[in-house]
């Protein structure tokens, strides 16, 4: 009976989990949030009496995109709400590894993740977050600026006379990162 929607949901759940984790860095909470956002969307579809048709229907790529955006919208709304209520271990390895990212506000983190990890366009991001485009650009800019400022500050703190971290070093570092990425 379930033709396309089921596999689509499974695939979406994986990326939703990743997004949830970017908002709330806790395995269990992120897992639950991904499930809750899918559950909430399914219930909404059921209330609108669309679910039964959807499960049988053949979906076009545009339909799939629409449902994907809706799922992210639910997840984002839940993430913003739950972030205020949940306290998580700030000393965990994951947070330490991505300290610059988790030092940002939750909205900025969401904007960065949607833009740079999931490659959503600004139009799609306005649909997901319900923020105007200009606010999203501002969030992205502040996030990027904060990251660079924090990196700079951290480098300045760690800087010793024998091992000064120069711009040239930074470019070498990015070179090595790129080499690592290339298969």
């Amino acid at each position: 009976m379930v033709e396309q929607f089921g596999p689509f949901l499974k695939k979406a759940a994986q990326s939703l989990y990743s997004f949830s984790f970017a908002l709330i860095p806790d395995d269990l909470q992120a897992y639950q949030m991904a499930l809750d956002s899918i559950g909430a969307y399914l219930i909404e579809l059921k209330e609108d009496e669309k679910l039964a048709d959807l499960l049988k229907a053949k979906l076009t790529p545009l339909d799939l995109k629409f449902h994907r955006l809706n799922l992210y919208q639910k997840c984002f709304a839940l993430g913003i709400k739950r972030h205020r209520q949940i306290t998580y271990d700030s000393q965990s390895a994951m947070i330490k590894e991505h300290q610059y990212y988790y030092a940002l506000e939750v909205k900025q983190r969401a904007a960065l993740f949607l833009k740079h990890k999931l490659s959503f366009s600004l139009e799609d991001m306005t649909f997901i977050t319900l923020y105007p485009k200009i606010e999203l650009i501002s969030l992205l800019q502040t996030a990027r600026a904060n990251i660079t400022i924090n990196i700079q500050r951290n480098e300045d703190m760690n800087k010793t006379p024998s091992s000064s971290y120069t711009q040239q070093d930074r470019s070498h570092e990015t070179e090595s990162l790129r080499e690592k990425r290339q298969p």
Partner: protein
Amino acid sequence: MKLKAYVKNVNLNKKSQDQLPSKRELFLKSQKQLATWAVEDYQKRQVMAQMDRFSLSLPLQDVVDELPASAKSYPEIVEECRNFLYLLSDIIPAQKPDSSLDNEIKELLRDVTRKSDSSNTDSLFDLKKWKFIYSPGMIAAFAFALALYHVLKRLMPY
């Protein structure tokens, strides 16, 4: 006379409209100010160029043209943007997929569809199914039947 003054006024307004800077000009002007402010600051300029290229979809060359002469050249800024993107993709975490989610989704779907099936069997008691009673057509039919009843009652009292 009045017409002359009106035409003159319209022309004046048109002229002032033409002189207004476009949004694009305003943006480039603000970028120039930003660039002057950030020209010595490697990171800030990097972020600024990144913004123009990737967020606002404005051709990077337009912004570079507005940069002061002491700023870096076009290919260097593009390179910096790319480097920044590489850095950013490492800074943002990507959690590995959890395979147990698949089973949960399967169960969730089964639950929701089972509930929707059971709601179909109880359709007689579903108030939504009886919505048609309140439809304008039904109300009109009921009013017509009532009127007919009264007319017939008058015509045939016994």
